[in-house]
């Protein structure tokens, strides 16, 4: 009874609360957020190029601003905005979040932290757990990324606390792509490296401002080459890798180099080019899986 009376002291008299105003603020904030979520990506696509990556990350910031403005307008409508009242309301909210919807609350907080720390932004290519793709939206509770196979993966910001997040471009327009070649060991390594460099150098997707590096490692089954280079735009990474792979393969075959095989598990053999791991590097520089 006592608790009930203190709550009624915090809240305004029900007759004083302007429900129409509350409704308008909530609907208004929701409409503005939806407009931002639609208009900004549209504008980013229209402007394209480098502007896309400047504009897209503004969505979560704008959303946070809209929510803050809506809260600032809402709170005095519902409670008397004294220090004691605000403290009481926020304490009650904290307890509710802490017990009832802990994970949801944690995701919200992580979402706010993510806006400032920026481990991922819309337009970034990230890998979280086993999912690799382009970040499409960063919401309040979760972010969504679209994989190269067009699967949408929703990942709660909660992951941010205890999972490594691999960001391939980190707000930049380009990202390093690695194209693998698995060759029979009997060949002239210097010639092959030169040829693979020329193959990368003549790719129409190549960003000439970034370096091209061809590295190799001798394995028990043959020689593993990696061509590391950057496409002009991160969205072209798969075309870029495919272009280097196709033309590189043709060039190596013309040189008489035999494309090798690599072991997959005990006794099983697969053609090297068929491996899914030859697609962009989720595991940067990792040789242990070979």
């Amino acid at each position, binding site marked *: 009874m006592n608790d009930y009376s203190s709550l009624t002291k915090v809240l305004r008299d029900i007759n004083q609360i302007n429900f129409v105003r509350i409704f308008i603020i909530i609907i208004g904030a929701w409409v503005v957020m939806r407009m931002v979520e639609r208009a900004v990506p549209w*504008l980013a696509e229209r402007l394209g*190029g*480098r502007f896309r990556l400047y504009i897209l990350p503004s969505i979560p910031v704008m959303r946070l601003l809209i929510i803050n403005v809506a809260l600032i307008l809402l709170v005095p409508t519902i409670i008397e905005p004294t220090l004691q009242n605000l403290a009481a309301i926020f304490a009650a909210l904290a307890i509710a979040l802490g017990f009832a919807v802990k994970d949801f609350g944690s995701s919200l907080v992580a979402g706010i932290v993510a806006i400032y720390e920026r481990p991922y932004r819309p337009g970034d290519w990230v890998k979280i757990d086993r999912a690799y793709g382009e970040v499409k939206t960063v919401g309040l509770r979760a972010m969504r990324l679209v994989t190269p196979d067009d699967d949408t993966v929703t990942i709660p910001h909660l992951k941010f606390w205890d999972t490594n997040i691999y960001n391939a471009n980190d707000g930049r327009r380009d990202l390093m792509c690695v194209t693998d070649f698995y060759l029979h060991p009997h060949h002239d390594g210097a010639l092959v490296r030169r040829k693979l460099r020329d193959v990368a150098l*003549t790719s*129409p997707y190549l960003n000439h401002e970034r370096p091209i590096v061809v590295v190799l490692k001798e394995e028990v089954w043959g020689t593993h080459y990696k061509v590391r280079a950057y496409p002009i735009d991160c*969205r072209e990474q798969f075309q870029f890798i495919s272009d280097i792979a196709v*033309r590189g393969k043709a*060039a190596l075959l013309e040189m008489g180099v035999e494309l090798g095989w690599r072991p997959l598990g005990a006794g099983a053999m697969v053609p090297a080019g068929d491996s899914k791991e030859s697609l962009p590097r989720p595991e940067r520089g990792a040789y242990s899986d070979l």
Partner: protein
Amino acid sequence: MTPEDANNSPLWSFIPLDRYAKPPELTREIVRRGFWGLWDRLRLHDKVPSNRFGQLELHPIAKDLLQQAVGEPDWREAEPALDEECKDWLKSGGQFEPLHAVVGAPYSGTCFTVRYWGADKNWRVIEPPAAGQLLTGARDWLNAIDPADESPWVIPCLEKCYLRHHKGLEPVKELLEKLSSRRRATLVACNSWAWAYLHKAVQIDLVLPAPLAPAPFDRNRLKRWFQSLTRFADEAPRAFRLPNRELVMAPAVQADESGQEKEADFLAKLAAYSRGIPGVAWSIWRHSLRFTPGPKNDDGGGDSGEQEQTIWVTPWENLNLPGIPEENRGQLALILHTLLLHNGVSNRLLPELLPGLAAVLGQDLHKLRAAGLVELEHGEWRVTALGYPAVREFLEEGGYLVDAI
């Protein structure tokens, strides 16, 4: 530089490539283009070309009159400027610095100038191989080039001596090796886009350092050049005016008279937009000219005299220049970039250079042709002079490797 100095300076000259600066763009033109560019991108504005300006109805100019108003450029006119620039080098017979290079943008005429220059001096002109030969690995062309040859050489189109293909870099590497071992004078001309690529791919500047480039054509140069290209059959002086009667270019015979009419800034805008490249400016200038149908083609103004007839110039803001289509811009960029890097590519070679786009090349090329950005000339697709500024801007914004001009 005073206006007198500007008028007395030679029309053609060569400067170091790293000192090339395109004519400055007027501030209000930057604002206007920025605003309408954004407007166009958002598809909020459809430019509808109109041929009516107040009382005047302007029509495309007849071919023979156009030819008289703006004759064909003669790239040989730049030869004396090249002579002047190479004076000391020629005196020494290329003993200390045997290799010189001239880099020119597309439609700058550099390739023609250097070829004529070499031929006039009886230098050996090293012609590029057939494009297909670069891919087949046939070495006849390279074997015929002997660095020990005592005669001076001219290589007028270095951009045709390579392909952006893993087999297309070896020939130019070998050619550069041969050049670097030469002790006789050799002048190499190269397209500015190919130069930019070869600079990244084979460090061409180590073999051919400090290249020259044709000086940019600013407003003054353009005016003098266009005046020199005017040859009306009736020899009557004609002024070039905007529909609001503002003077764009006075007839050459009146050019030196005092008390001239104030001129509109059309040529300054043209010089900036065309990046000082004469061939590009020449095409846009021709594209902008109009006439009024009727018994008399005069402006009716009393100040300019009865004898003066007028060629009308479309206002800069109303020029309908080619723009980049909205669909598949990524694919289109790859095609346009490839064409510029080679200064034109044949139908047969294009799929070799863009194997990933082989299936869609045909339709994309036709889309680009419909937009006025490319043309098929002598069996080769190339970027049009009218479309070149838009294409360059598009590629630069897209992060592609662009030339220094």
